[in-house]
């Protein structure tokens, strides 16, 4: 018995001594993840960092995914929401009362996530010892991407903080004057344009280029009505060194398909890919597609949460092509009973005729946004949250129309004609030079507004067009919108130009003020 006890004692002692060291250590290495202090050391880290900024595009509230179209298209006079989800509908109906509901919350949040990631790259990459060319490129990409997010933030919410350093948990930023945000966007894009390469090859195609930076810079100047600067920035793509890189593709509809991505007309695309799994936030099975399509597809193929106003179709029918045909852009833009001009028996909706859908009165007169639907390959299927169609954030035809607008606005109406002509000619329309020579500056602007509708409807540009053209600040111009879209009866001047900031943000940050009149 004594032997047993001695053995027990000895074992106990040995076990406790040997285990002691392991147990006394309060510094346990993390086997799962790298600690921030061991990151940002090499060129490989810098590459992963900048890739992660692009990676934020795959969130629901990020540009080109499911929610931004509700802000830029459905809120506008060309769209309306029919969602059974009251809060979502209220975004389009301009009478939102739930400022923190999922959509407004996620859109705000996912944009700031992009800003935070870009700020991390900009704060850490400059100090890394690595290939200087690549370093310069990564920094340029981060500045471009930060500007993409700030452009949306300042146009959706107007009065926002300007955050340029990596965040700390208890940051409680205040808002800054809008001019300060715009100045930063201009600075970032000017520096990005200087730093970025003109193009990429192979597996790098899709990264931000010099042309992308100039394109967005032009857009930012134009939105502020800095027409001369806009002309200078956009010139690079049209008549400057970028001239050889960009052109319009022959088939308009190719701009909204995954099979013809990153073509000559693309100035910057958000790259999407269909994966079998579409897991959530930044996990091993995260979605890298866009979840936009299900919200816009007609019944049987999507939720039909949003529709296009019928007047848009009429806008296309105002003018025929040079050969007397219907504007081919209509079919690519609008899915409705007569997307095929022979009517519902010939119009194809996800592989079968419009007639065969037997839509009831609720649906048969509706028009759906056609761009970015997967209807050309998901035959007789329901849309899925993982569409592979790249979102064309900047398209060369938009660049041409912006250029024409800026030239006209700065008094060079005659010089502006050729750029509208290029866009019209691709669609088979007569040139404006032939169809409507000698327009005054105001007439030209009015015509340009029409050109932008038929060329760009459904590409998340309309809201800012209306804002820039003064429709939101003037009761008479607002009345035009009300006539086209009854939802504008809820529009209050001084309020609805900007969305309300999520209430949850204001509830925990006393430095943030709600936008006026919300």
């Amino acid at each position, binding site marked *: 018995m004594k032997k047993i*006890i001695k053995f027990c*004692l000895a074992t*106990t002692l040995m*076990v406790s001594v040997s285990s002691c060291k*392991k*147990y006394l250590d*309060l*510094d*346990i290495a993390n086997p*799962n*993840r*790298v*600690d921030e*202090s061991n990151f940002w050391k090499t060129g490989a880290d810098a*590459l*992963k960092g*900048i*890739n*992660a900024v*692009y*990676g934020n595009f795959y969130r629901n509230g990020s540009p080109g995914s499911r929610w931004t179209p509700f802000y830029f298209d459905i809120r506008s006079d060309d769209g309306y929401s029919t969602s*059974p*989800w*009251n809060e979502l*509908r*209220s975004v389009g109906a301009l*009478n939102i009362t739930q400022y923190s509901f999922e959509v407004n919350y996620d859109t705000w*949040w996912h944009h*700031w*996530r*992009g800003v935070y*990631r870009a700020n991390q790259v900009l704060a850490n990459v400059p100090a890394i010892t690595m290939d200087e060319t690549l370093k310069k490129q990564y920094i340029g990409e981060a500045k471009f991407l930060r500007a993409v997010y700030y452009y949306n933030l300042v146009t959706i919410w107007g009065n926002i903080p300007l*955050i340029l350093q990596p*965040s700390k*948990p*208890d*940051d409680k930023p205040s808002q800054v004057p809008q001019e300060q945000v715009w100045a930063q966007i201009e600075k970032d894009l000017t520096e990005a344009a200087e730093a970025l390469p003109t193009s990429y090859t192979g*597996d790098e195609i899709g990264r931000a280029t010099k042309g992308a930076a100039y394109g967005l810079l032009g857009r930012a100047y134009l939105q502020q009505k800095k027409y001369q600067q806009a002309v200078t920035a956009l010139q690079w793509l049209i008549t400057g060194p970028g001239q050889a890189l960009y052109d319009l593709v022959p088939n308009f509809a190719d701009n909204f398909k995954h099979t013809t991505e*990153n073509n000559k007309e693309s100035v910057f695309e958000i*790259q999407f*890919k269909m994966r*079998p*799994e579409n897991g959530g*936030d*930044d996990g*091993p*099975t*995260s979605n890298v597609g866009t979840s936009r399509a299900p919200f816009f597809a007609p*019944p049987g193929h*999507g939720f039909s949460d949003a529709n296009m106003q019928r007047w848009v179709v009429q806008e296309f029918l105002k003018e025929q092509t040079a050969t007397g045909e219907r504007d081919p852009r209509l079919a690519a833009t609008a899915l409705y009973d007569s997307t095929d001009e022979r009517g519902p028996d010939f119009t194809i909706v996800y592989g079968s005729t419009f007639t065969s859908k037997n839509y*009831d*009165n*609720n649906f048969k007169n509706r028009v759906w946004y056609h761009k970015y639907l997967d209807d050309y390959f998901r035959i007789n299927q329901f849309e*899925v*949250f993982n569409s592979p169609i790249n979102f064309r954030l900047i398209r060369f035809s938009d660049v041409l129309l912006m250029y024409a607008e800026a030239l006209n606005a700065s008094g060079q109406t005659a010089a502006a004609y050729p750029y509208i002509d290029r866009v019209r000619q691709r669609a088979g329309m007569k040139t404006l030079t032939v169809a409507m020579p000698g327009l005054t500056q105001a007439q030209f602007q009015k015509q340009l507004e029409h050109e932008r509708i038929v060329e760009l409807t459904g590409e998340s540009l309309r809201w800012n067009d209306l804002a820039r053209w003064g429709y939101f600040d003037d009761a008479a111009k607002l009345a035009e919108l009300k006539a086209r879209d009854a939802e504008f009866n809820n529009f209050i001047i001084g309020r609805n130009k900007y969305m309300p900031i999520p209430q949850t*943000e204001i*509830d*925990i*940050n006393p430095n*943030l003020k709600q936008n006026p009149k919300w």
Partner: protein
Amino acid sequence: MLPGGAAKIDIRGAGTFANNNPLYIIDGMYSDATPDFNPSDIESIQILKDASAAAIYGSRAANGVIIITTKKGKSGPLVLSGSIKAGVQAVHKRYDMMDVNEYRALATSLYQAGGLTVPTSLSTEFDPAINTNWQKEFLRTGAVGEYNLSLSGAIKKVNFYISGNHFSNKGPVIDNSFSRSGLRINTNTKFGRFTIGQNVLFSWTNEDPIANAGVGVNPFVDMISMPPVVPLKGSRYISPENPEGWGIGLNNAYLSTLTANVPALQRLDQFEQRNFKIRGNAFLDFRIAKGLIYRFNFGLEKTVDKGEGTRSPGTVRQGTPSPNNNQPASFRSRGEFKSTLFEHTVNYDETFGNHKISAVAGISLQRFDNPIFRYTTIGTNPTSEDPYTEKSNFIGILGRVNYSYKEKYLTSLTFRRDGSSKFSKNYRWGNFPSASVAWRISKENFWKVNAVNDLKLRASYGSLGNSEFLNAWMYYAQINPFPKAVFGPNEVEQLGAIVTKLANSDLRWERKNTTNIGLEAAFLNSLFTLSADYFIAKTKDVLIDLPINLTTGNAGGNPAVNAASLRNNGFELALTYRPKTAKDFKWDATLNFTTIRNKVIAFGNQSTKYTQVGDARTQLGRSIGEWYVLKTDGIFQSQAEIDAYKGKTGQVLQPWSKPGDIRYIDVDNDGVIDLDKDRYYAGTPWAKWESGLLLNFNYKNFSLNMQWYAVVGNKLYNRPRYTVDRMDQNTNFRKGATFWTPQNPSTEWPRAAIGAPDQGIQFNVLPQSDRWLENGSYLRLRNLEVAYTFNKNQLKRIGFNECRVFLSGQNLLTITKYKGLDPDITGVNIFERGLDNGQYPALRIISAGVRFGL
């Protein structure tokens, strides 16, 4: 409580924002509240509330300690005992919802009010034969069964206790069950100066939980809000995504609703969680000298959790396309948890005449290791996984001295130094001292008050650390390796890595300092006994994941922070009356009364004075999570009333309103109804007082026990009611629901319309309004038991030593004005303590059983 779920126990209110669960010490092994326990194995339960008493258990004891000692074998004849118990359980209350005809009438007029086409399911294609009672489809009467058998005694010098236990529970929701089997072996033996022993439990559990998959699905809300016009299944609903045709909104002219078919989800989502656990300890006592004992205690808890599930094809809610809707998917997860404990203590216990001293000193080392693996397979697609391992270490150095003189003066001093790997280098260690004194005044010679036969006064102060909220490595930002970017014509997924979740590097011990004064007294020869305590508990640097601004770009959860300091002060009283009665009839009664106030006294390093989660605001100087919502004031009955309702600057306050709309108060009196600034503190989720009454009656062999419980003065937010009363979406409605029209004016129901076409209706359905708050007070008969114990003489003849039969009922009666299923709400998190979000309600259980011994 969920089948197999752990009880929510707060000892003395919410001292911390985070985990308020007390520490369980089961046979010397530290543990959390777990459902693996067999109540028949319990020899004794001791609850330590006093900080000084709990101090020896260190950093995890801040919320109180529950010490459970399991049965030990004794020398003498072998004892075989057992019990069998069987019963039924159910959600006893239902929302009283409309039948299909009532629903049809109201929904039709709501669609018309919204200017929408009435769905054909309500008009031309209305089928009165479909009249689905969704609560009936989802809920059922469950069953419980429990069987125990134990054997104890001594063989030679080894005392042993062995027990086997099986518990099975068919849940009160379809496809929901829990079972547990356990085997316990406790032994101890003495050899001269040595005592060695071990206690070990093997436990197997198996759970089929309630499926809760998918955004916007909440079973206890959806079961009331699904319209009765939707069938459980129907041929109309069959599609490639929904091959079995489960009834859902179709988003067409026939039917549109966003409510989920939860019985379908429950059937399609088959998930099974299996758990195996070993928990136990082995100890060795060595008597060094008289009164001086060295003890080595080794504890181990090891669990293996396996989750396995399949999702059959089918859609349970309108508009949820997903690649896995029309192909089966399977999920697997595996978690292992290992906690080991090494304790070396030296105990000294000695009496010198009137002086009694006991002391203990030692070191306690604890290590946690918890790897988790997950796999998902959709259709034939490959498996993916994200293994993650949690590791942490704790070190405690402890010392305590107790001294008493003549049992009259008692004092105790404790010191503890705790180290935790969950903090960064500079903040790992904390010192936590405690002290207590007591004076049994009735033992003094001068005590001549005969009516008071015992009186003890006591006071204590204790400081305890807490780091329970934290997981390992929370004090630094980790690089998330999963963000990726797609580039190029080949759509290459390039790897990305970046910080996605922020971290606070200066995390430090949460510290709870409790001062307690109390007395224990017995009156009139112990006819009455009384225990009364007043305590002030200040919790400094409370650890929690406080919401941070989205402008930080943070993702993946809020970072942990030492957010605030709280004060809980309260009064506890327990009075027992045990009358001297006739021999055959005995009874006694114990009344408990508790009142606790909690208050936020500082907001840490935060540059703020409040924080808010949902509709509950936590502000400096107020209690945690008070309701902060708009103030309603009835319903406008006419346009004249709207026009006359003006702010201080003379303008109409609600120009968007129409007769029938809710009137909101301009709380800040600035002349505008503002969704932010016109909110007010509309009540607290914390009870003003709680009280319990325990009654025991014995007549001959019969006994009757009752446990009553009352909670008074709290406000609850009834979100299920909000979901069905807002009436701007297609849901079912509560019986008697209506809406304001000029022909049908109401002072209770505002104007409503499906589609919410105008601002007035948008305002009528605001969730951040006191319209949804309700009084949460209740009185409940928690437990009632009738039992009969057989006489030993009768039993001897059949070879039994002991036999008792009983019939018991839980939650048989609840008196409350609360409209929801159960007013006993503990909220979804500490900040929204009073939010009824459709949580699992308390169940009514009626059971009968027999206990016997040989």
